[in-house]
């Protein structure tokens, strides 16, 4: 935990933690020593609600390769979702 690699973005949506679903306020992406995964460093992603206390957290610890693949999957899924949204908007304008 001696790196300073931390990226924080606001997040809207919901996450499922130990005590069930909660509203998200932010997502934190860092590269540092993980707590659980047997890796020296990991990309850690925390989906959190800072107003609800420390346990309002959904956490993953990924290898760099898994994080790259996840990042690619997000980009592809978002691009496909945006195409679909734009077609839907065109359809509703023509109707």
């Amino acid at each position: 935990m001696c790196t300073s690699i931390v990226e924080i973005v606001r997040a809207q949506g919901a996450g499922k933690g130990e005590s069930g679903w909660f509203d998200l306020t932010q997502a934190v992406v860092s590269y540092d020593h993980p707590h659980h995964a047997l890796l020296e460093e990991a990309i850690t992603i925390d989906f959190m609600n800072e107003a609800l206390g420390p346990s309002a957290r959904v956490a993953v610890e990924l290898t760099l390769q898994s994080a790259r693949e996840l990042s690619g999957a997000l980009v592809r899924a978002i691009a496909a979702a945006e195409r679909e949204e734009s077609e839907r908007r065109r359809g509703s304008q023509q109707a």
Partner: protein
Amino acid sequence: MPYEGMIAETISIKGHNNEPISAYVARPLGAGPYPGMVLIHHAPGWDEWYFETTRKFAHHGYAAISHNLYHRAGEGKADDVAAKVRASGGVPDEQVIGDTEGAVAWLRAQPWLNGKVGLLGTCSGGRQTFLFACRSKSIDCAVDLWGGRVVMSKEELTPKQPVAPIEYTKDLSCPLLGLFGNEDRAPTPEQVDQQEAELKRHGKQYEFHRYDGAGHGFFYYDRPMYRIEQALDGWKKVFGFLEKHLAA
């Protein structure tokens, strides 16, 4: 076999600005006198490794206290609390110094203390140990275990960490022991060189030991970075150093 026993418990102490913070204390049963040790936990939090290490010091005849630098982030599992602290940019250096001063003062007020107090920290706690040893005159020796970011670039400075600890080297108030892995990237061997050069320049009393085949956190027996030979030798160095500087 001589009788052996210890007491280990959580307590509340006065931290920075007299705010209450939690702490874990372990000491041998008996009247003492015992040398004192304050342990500054690492960035992963006030966790099981620190509770175990506090008891390890008690097993070796020290009265040890590990205070919770993340107390203000709320109750929770150590990893959840640490994640919350990371998301808020870490804890301010001034607050760490105030909290640690509180732990030292608590130990110094106990009737079973031999009058000597040492300080030890790992990872970010190693950095904070060095910082405290420079900013305070209340301890008798300090052990910095692979503290990263003692050397900081201007870009790394933040309102919470406004000054690189290396800048305070001239004020180091007690003997310092440092253990480092040559494969570490925070601190890198070059940064350890810089810290050592600064200690030499100011004529400070220090011992640095650097281990080949080890990186960061090589004492952590529950993590893949554990290196048994280097860790066993490192613990010998730690206890040898403390014996020299904390005997009454």
